[in-house]
């Protein structure tokens, strides 16, 4: 397949054909695809599946490689040993294929990234995995119970009002479960926090990235939310600008990488 059939999809490079797709990180070092500052095989897999699901029905998937199955389930995919679609992680490249039959691959040029910065981020993630909470934190139980909302905008409804994040209301204010919200919205405000202004969960990576960007978004379906900017993109947000969303790593703590939707600025 030629690279001109590949598209930029949620900040990644996706090459799709009739019986599957290959999705790669857009970042490269010496031509080899490497993960971006908040990406891994799991984020690539979810991104690839979301593109594939626009063309094909995805009933179940089988995972070969280092992919967090909880995340796939939270995003609405059934993970099965004999799944219809096979997700294969490349051994030495930030690349995966999703297909029904054979493993696929093809060359697509990426953007060369700074090797030193890449190594610093990679080491920071390794250190962060061993970090232990010193106070306020989201427990693994709370993280898992909110996963479908955090990773797939699963929502609630009360009358005509869509609700996200989910609320635990009582009486006639109790909402019912509703389908996931659409993954698009408009920036209502934004900020970029300096390394010193960021929560301690981000203290190892924020200095390397030069701070972290956050946007306050009104989703097209109604609810508002606060989101980190995906890929630690340095592009300047603007009030009124459209955003879409992609799954990314948020932070690691107590040996667990926490994922969530981040904003992709149009």
């Amino acid at each position, binding site marked *: 397949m030629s690279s001109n059939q590949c598209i930029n999809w949620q900040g990644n490079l996706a090459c799709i054909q009739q019986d599957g797709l290959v999705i790669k990180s857009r970042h490269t070092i010496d031509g080899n695809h490497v993960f971006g500052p908040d990406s891994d095989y799991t984020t690539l897999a979810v991104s690839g599946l979301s593109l594939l699901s626009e063309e094909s029905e995805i009933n179940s998937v089988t995972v070969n490689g280092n992919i967090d199955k909880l995340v796939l389930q939270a995003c609405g995919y059934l993970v099965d040993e004999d799944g219809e679609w096979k997700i294969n992680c490349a051994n030495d490249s930030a690349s995966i294929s999703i297909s029904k039959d054979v493993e696929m691959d093809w060359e697509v040029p990426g953007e060369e990234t700074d090797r030193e910065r890449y190594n610093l981020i990679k080491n920071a993630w390794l250190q962060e995995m061993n970090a232990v909470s*010193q*106070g*306020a934190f*989201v427990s693994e139980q709370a993280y898992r119970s909110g996963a479908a909302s955090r990773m797939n905008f699963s929502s609630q409804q009360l009358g005509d009002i869509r609700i996200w994040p989910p609320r635990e209301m009582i009486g006639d204010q109790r909402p019912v479960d509703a389908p996931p919200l659409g993954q698009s919205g408009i920036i209502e*405000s934004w*900020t*970029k*926090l300096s390394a010193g202004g960021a*929560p301690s969960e981000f203290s190892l990576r924020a200095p390397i990235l030069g701070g972290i960007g956050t946007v*306050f978004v009104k989703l097209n379906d109604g609810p508002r939310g606060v989101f980190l900017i995906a890929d630690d993109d340095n592009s300047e947000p603007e009030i009124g600008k459209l955003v879409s969303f992609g799954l990314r790593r948020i932070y690691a703590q107590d040996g667990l990488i926490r994922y969530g939707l981040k904003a992709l600025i149009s």
Partner: protein
Amino acid sequence: MVDVAVIGAGQTKFGNHALGLKGMWAESAENAFASIDGDFEPSMVDEAFIGSIAFGGGQIGNTAALLTEHTGMDNIPVRRVENACASSGFAFRDAWMAIKSGQADIVVAGGIEKMNDLTPERKRFWLGVSGDTEWERLAGLTFPGTYALMARRHFHEFGSVHDDLVNISVKNHMHGLDNEYAHIRKDVSFEKAQNGFMVADPLTLYDCCPTSDGASTVILAADHVAKKLSEDPIWVLGSGAGSDHLALHDRPSITQLIASQRAARSAYDQAGLDASDIDMAEVHDCFTIAELMATEDLGFASRGEGGLFAREGRGRRNEGSVTINPSGGLKSKGHPLGATGTGQVVEVFKQLRGEVESSRQVRDANTALTHNVGGSGATCAVHVFGRDLK
């Protein structure tokens, strides 16, 4: 119903303290006891409420019992009150209610926080504990970020600009310059504040209050006791409080604090006053945008005109109808989270009695207001004071 007065108030200097919790509380309580005009003994106190978020986790449980045992208030009912940065504003309200209910005649309200004996890592953990942990903190927000989102939205909706915030910063540093209890006593020029290090765009270092150690103590008394123990009691004319959604995303607007508006309305109604009757106000300027919004929420400026209010210097000492933050506010005086609310009352007590440094005395001040906000506005306590009963 019984009327309630403040008969004594004192505090430590806010800033970096060598003293720990017990030492700071003892100093603060001693200063408060010494400010009482009549014959007073700590054993006369019926009950005590002490605000603190127990920053750093050093003494989370039974803080109040530990502190009061060191200041001669043995065996009385005590408790720690926690409502983030509004902890002692609510401790003060609890003390006021204890007297109003007839259950107590003399009650201590205070606050304390030790913030600067922690590693930077641990401090950053604790600075974010009062926001929405699951959704905002996971999106990388601490309070500088939360208030930065509010500021940029206010700029967008109402045409306020960062220079309006700079004016607030310069004013509060000027007010705090001669305050012996203030954490940061330095004159800050407009140009310097305009070009500060960016903390959370658009907020710079000069838009953010410092993290401070400190304690504050206030003694409240029922009217029949107050008249015996004080030659010049400061009357609590109104007490109001409110709350709001914790997370910004659940609020209909992020350019106003509904909790502040509700608390203010309740306090004004009780006092039979409105904003135009207030001579001075200690407002919760944890960030300069918070003061800008407070001037609107408390009724000193119309909605959307907080920027103009700051631009015209209407909150400067003795220059407009109301002086905003004569102590220097959180920006200059400092912000030891749990101690801030009753620290505001200490300033009001001294200002209304004409006991502050002459260089920073608000002239002819007869009425005052305190405004103490928890976090990004999930809680708020507002109190109105007067030299005279209605």
